[in-house]
């Protein structure tokens, strides 16, 4: 074995999920053949990784949505890694975006941050959005006021 390139590209969680699902389909097709042994390590990894990825926001994404999001974010001066993390983590609140974007306060106005969040929620819609927002309203927010990071419930 020889490593030709340690890192050719970064891939989104969505792309990994697609590959895993494809493998899962292939596995299901061959399951009926009794003499075919399915390798244990592939099975374990496939099961655990599918379980993890299906619990994240990439489960409801599609290629068109991600392209639309990338287009929407093109106007902002974000690095590749930051865009990748926005796709993977789908930040909904300012505090999450501040974590992903390095030196966010210096690079972006708070208006830009709000715009980015708006682009994210419109490009990657999820059914459970309102439900979760409702929970946030009920939660006691002990940290309010600190760091001037208003929790964005829009």
């Amino acid at each position, binding site marked *: *074995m020889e490593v030709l390139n340690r890192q050719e590209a970064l891939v989104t*969680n969505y792309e990994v999920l697609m590959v895993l699902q494809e493998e899962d389909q292939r596995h299901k097709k061959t399951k009926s053949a009794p003499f075919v042994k399915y390798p244990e390590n592939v099975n374990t*990894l496939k099961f655990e990784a599918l379980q993890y990825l299906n619990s994240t926001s990439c489960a409801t994404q599609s290629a068109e949505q991600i392209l639309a999001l990338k287009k929407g974010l093109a106007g902002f001066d974000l690095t590749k890694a930051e865009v990748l993390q926005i796709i993977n983590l789908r930040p909904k609140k300012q505090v*999450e975006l501040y974590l992903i974007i390095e030196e966010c306060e210096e690079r972006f106005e708070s208006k830009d941050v709000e715009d980015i969040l708006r682009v994210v929620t419109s490009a990657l819609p999820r059914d459970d959005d309102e439900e979760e927002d409702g929970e946030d309203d009920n939660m006691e927010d002990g940290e309010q006021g600190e*760091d001037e990071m208003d929790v964005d419930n829009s």
Partner: protein
Amino acid sequence: MFVLAVLRDTLKIVPSEFTKSREEALKYEINRKYANRVLHDIGLCMMVHDILEIDEGYVQHSEGWIWVKVIFRLIVFRPFKDEILVGRIRSASPEGIQVSMGFFDDITISADQMPVGSEYNGTEGVWVWRYEGNELFMDLDEQVRFQVLDSAFLDVNPPRPKIGDVDSVPASHPPPYSLICTIAGDGLGLLTWW
């Protein structure tokens, strides 16, 4: 979180795989060989992404299978420094907490990377963050958002029993790949906090 690595390898296709197309058979073989294994300095191998080059293959004298030289791209789990990830708390101890992402377990958040004002609660067996009079418990199996500080690869050889002590098999091996992470900072920690 995931990257593509380009690898070259010589793989064998056994006769039972001859019914499949060459590409299918190779993908099967690549996954069998690499999936769920850690390659030193590369990361945790997931699945083959695609195959770039396949040579025509050759059969060696007295063997019944084909050797094929192949160049392929592999999906590898190797988060970059400062990346934000989400996992679940697997265990807690006075030294810190261990986080699992399901397919990857060797994530450590040491005691000094906890939010300021945190301490280990020995009776409950969990960490507690005291913040403005509130006690925020970090219960096991809670979802936690953390930031990668560093990663460590350890060249682990297959465990060999030492001569003389046949019975004592080392209970736990050091992980070949582990992540050192932090939850000290705004937005980090349990998802329910923010």
